[in-house]
């Protein structure tokens, strides 16, 4: 294996603008994400964090009336020019803020992605299901009822099921959008441990409303506000007493409106 240089850019965003209809919500932002780092993204509600993630895996296209300009490259390839958008989406694991247990069995919830990618051998699928459920700290709770419905799990369990599903296609990039909204602190801690493990072979984008979570996990943190990057720096700097921009300190300390 080639030795990956420490600052190789995994994702590169240049001049990204996004508008819903007439309303522009991302105003030309540029930044990059390094391979195998955890990038924390913090910012108040409506700042465009979720929209940013949806631009990266191109699910923004499912919302009518959106207009995107600027470029996003993943592994040097412009996402808007990729031939196989489904392969791109499988390269990126996406965990939505609200838990979504699909109305399928727990097993099928996780096997859906490998199955859509063309994997059919039951043994392989079962192995993936077990591995992903373990990584999402859910295996022990559901291993005896894999064939019951995913929608009948509790909210927190469904959220971990969502995480397991995002891992099921062995993504190189994992986007977590406020994953801990529906989970209790103990489970959150367990998943955070998993993330520390996963970061050795994945690039992780961690959108979070809990600034302390970014502080605990992220290598670098980006403060997004009203569709613009206020500051992007190492987590230590962002959370230090003197970040470059005073708004960052205000937000991190909770003074911000």
């Amino acid at each position, binding site marked *: 294996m080639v030795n990956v240089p420490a600052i190789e850019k995994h994702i590169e965003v240049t001049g990204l603008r996004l508008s819903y209809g007439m309303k522009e919500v991302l105003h030309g932002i540029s930044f990059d994400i390094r391979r195998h780092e955890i990038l924390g993204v913090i910012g108040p509600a409506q700042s465009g964090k979720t929209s940013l993630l949806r631009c990266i895996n191109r699910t923004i296209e499912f919302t009518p009336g959106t207009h995107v300009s600027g470029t996003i490259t993943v592994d040097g390839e412009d996402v808007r020019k990729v031939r196989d958008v489904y392969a791109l989406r499988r390269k990126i694991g996406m965990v939505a803020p609200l838990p979504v247990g699909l109305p399928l069995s727990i097993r099928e919830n996780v096997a859906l992605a490998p199955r859509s990618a063309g994997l059919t051998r039951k043994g392989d699928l079962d192995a993936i299901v077990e591995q992903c459920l373990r990584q999402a700290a859910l295996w022990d709770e559901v291993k005896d009822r894999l064939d019951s*419905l995913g929608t009948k799990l509790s909210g927190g369990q469904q959220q971990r099921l969502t995480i397991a599903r995002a891992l099921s296609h062995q993504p190189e990039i994992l986007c977590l959008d406020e994953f801990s909204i529906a989970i209790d602190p103990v489970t959150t801690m367990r998943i955070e441990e998993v993330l520390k493990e996963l970061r050795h072979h994945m690039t992780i984008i961690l959108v979070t409303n809990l600034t302390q979570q970014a502080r605990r996990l992220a290598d670098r943190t980006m403060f997004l506000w009203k569709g613009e990057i206020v500051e992007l720096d190492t987590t230590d700097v962002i959370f230090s007493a003197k970040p470059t921009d005073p708004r960052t300190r205000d937000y991190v300390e909770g003074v911000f409106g």
Partner: protein
Amino acid sequence: MNASTGHAMFGETPPVRRKLRQEALAQWVFGAMAAAMIVPLLLIVGYLVVRAAPSLNLEFLLEVPKRGMTEGGIWPAFVGTLYLVFLSLAFSAPIGILAAVYLNEYARDNWFNRVINLAVINLAGVPSIVHALFGLGAFVYAARFGYSIISASLTLAIMTLPVIIAATREALASVPRSFREACWNVGATRWQTIWAVVLPNSISGILTGIILEVSRAAGETAPVMFTGVVFFKAVERGDLFPYYLNEQCMALSMHLYTISTQVPGVKESIPFATAIVLLALVLMVNAAAISLRVYLRSRKKW
């Protein structure tokens, strides 16, 4: 807090009593209106059953009309109606479902799809006699199917199509968008999403919509009268396959009209018994739709 304040807060004061009285009155009035719906149904069914009583037996269903349709049964008309209904559904259900899937899952909001939507809505409002004329022109003459079961079923199919599309779209739209997004996020195509998640969870609504169209198709007279249903057709008693599809057939709705208004000296109970059979067919189909719905609801997955 002591008991007396509690009493003052929650006890009945004159305005509260007035509100309660109004509430009770409203409930009573609305309830009575709803209950009144049962009355016409019971009256219709009761009246029909009483008048039809002498002819109500299995023989009546299986026997063919006799003595210039003044006696005997209704088998040819009964089978004809089944033919027409099932054949028309065989056309309209697949087309309707696929069209609705396109409109609800694939279509972007552009002028072309808006025109389709408009067409569907307006087609649903076209009176059946106009459908009948269209069927006559399009299927009987232009397509050269002649007066036949095919022409009549196609006409019925065109008539039921917009309602099937509307019902299917509604069923599809009731599947939460978040399910679709979850599938898209893991790299499933639109079709994989529809197949794995959307259709299995909307099938109850789709089937109910289709089955309810059966009753409409069974009851229509004008569209089939113009395109392929005849007065009388000689058929074997109890024969399940008496017609070829390029032939004309009899149908219950038309038969009822004929024996009630065109044929003198019909045994008095026969038209009423014919109406009972038509009504029973429709009610049975509706009951099937309802129980299917209840069954699928009970397995609803979220």
